[in-house]
């Protein structure tokens, strides 16, 4: 079954969508959308470093994304405006990454594959990495769910109930780095943030509790991956962007339904 590249691609897409859904909800609730962008852009630097030191891509990207996320978290606590900080960090990391790639003489790498992903080239090993990472992210978030939610609502409230908001933030940061590292192959650096945010934002319209929002986001992400891949195959379009397009259409459709529903008759 896994011999078929379409099957492997679909499974990879579903894996990333399922990890991105609950994580994306926290990114939306905490207004960390650009945090996801910054971590993803830093991943290009990770790709360059992995190639330079002849490591496999996953640990390199994971390490750089994690360092990036930790630096931003630390600096944000010291009075820098978050959007400025992320703007500086995200684009510097991307620029340094692109420059670093150009120094790699003798290796021709397809940069487009990392910017936009190459889901159709997912191997069995990639699939293992993606599902392992996704399971880890889903496990961590499920385990810490109460603490994460309480910290998101009010840090002092979390403290009073015995949670440590800084530790919860660290867990989110770690999950974000893992998700970026596993998703880079599927949708690429430029569209990872889209897969985090769009399904969660679309799910907000239909959800009444945090848990249902995460579940609906996972369904929307999965549908986007399956329909997007099929669409890419039929229409001969790039796979990663097509998946994101499907998610965006679902977002628009759900909002349209809601606005029509709220219109006074």
């Amino acid at each position: 079954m896994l011999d078929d590249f379409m099957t492997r691609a679909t499974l990879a897409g579903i894996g990333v969508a399922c990890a991105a859904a609950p994580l994306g909800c926290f990114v939306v609730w905490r207004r960390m959308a650009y945090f996801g962008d910054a971590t993803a852009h830093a991943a290009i630097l990770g790709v360059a470093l992995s190639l330079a030191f002849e490591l496999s891509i996953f640990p390199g990207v994971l390490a750089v994304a994690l360092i990036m996320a930790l630096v931003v978290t630390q600096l944000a606590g010291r009075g820098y405006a978050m959007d400025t900080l992320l703007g500086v960090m995200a684009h510097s990391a991307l620029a340094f990454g692109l420059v670093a790639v150009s120094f790699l003489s003798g290796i021709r790498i397809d940069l487009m594959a990392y910017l936009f992903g190459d889901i159709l080239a997912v191997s069995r090993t990639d699939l293992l990495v993606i599902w392992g990472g996704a399971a880890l992210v889903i496990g961590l978030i499920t385990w810490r769910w109460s603490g994460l939610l309480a910290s998101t609502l009010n840090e002092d409230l979390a403290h009073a109930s015995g949670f440590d908001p800084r530790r919860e933030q660290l867990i989110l940061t770690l999950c974000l780095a893992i998700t970026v590292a596993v998703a880079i192959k599927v949708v690429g650096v430029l569209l990872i943030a889209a897969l985090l945010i769009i399904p969660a934002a679309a799910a907000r319209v239909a959800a009444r509790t945090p848990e249902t929002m995460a579940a609906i986001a996972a369904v929307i992400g999965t549908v986007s991956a399956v329909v997007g891949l099929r669409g890419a195959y039929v229409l001969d379009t790039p796979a990663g962007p097509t998946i994101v397009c499907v998610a965006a259409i679902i977002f628009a459709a759900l909002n349209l339904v809601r606005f029509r529903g709220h219109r006074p008759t």
Partner: protein
Amino acid sequence: MTLINVRNLSVAYGANTVLRDVDLTVSPGEIVTIVGPNGSGKTSLLRAIIGATPPAQGSVDLKPQLKIGYVPQRLHIDQTLPITVERFMRLTDRASRNTCKDALDAAGVPDLLDRQMTQLSGGQFQRVLLARALINSPDILLLDEATQGLDQPGSAAFYRQIETVRAQTGCAILMISHDLHVVMSASDRVICLNGHVCCQGTPAFVASAPEYRALFGAGTGGALALYRHDHDQHHDHNRNAAE
């Protein structure tokens, strides 16, 4: 055994020391109120007690396994976060739907279980916060200016609710308040804070202390007198009605 024992506590943010040498104890069943001007370190003291701010000096000792019900000063729920009142009630504690319902009934806001938190009025929201803090029968309730944003009748009703809670459950209460007249009527002990403990004792003692008057001025004295006057009259009314 005391629930909270703060000794010689100092709290600093960088080079800025906001609290110096604070001693404070709270015993079971006590209502203790902290008053003080803006920037006097009231919230820092409460945050040090819940462990959100590490002490620069001194110590904060809580009774082992102390169950704290915390009502924050403000709680902003982002529009992107869908959460029903029922789900919010069990944010940090397990509780059945019936337990949540009973807690809301007791807080005077029945029938809210399935409403979204973001759709509540200010008064309903504060009462839900209080009901949530009480759901796990805490040993002590911590309130940080819990009536901010409520009008006079609203905050009066809120404090009546708190007195009822103490009478019914016997839980201790440590609160920060700006409503000085409420402080004077409801507290067992008042602590006047201004970077350090200026004075503390019974409400009547603190009200007459020169340190307190220096901080809150003569205007407050007037308001207090007015309130006491009201209070006496209220009792007279009752007596007349009974006759």
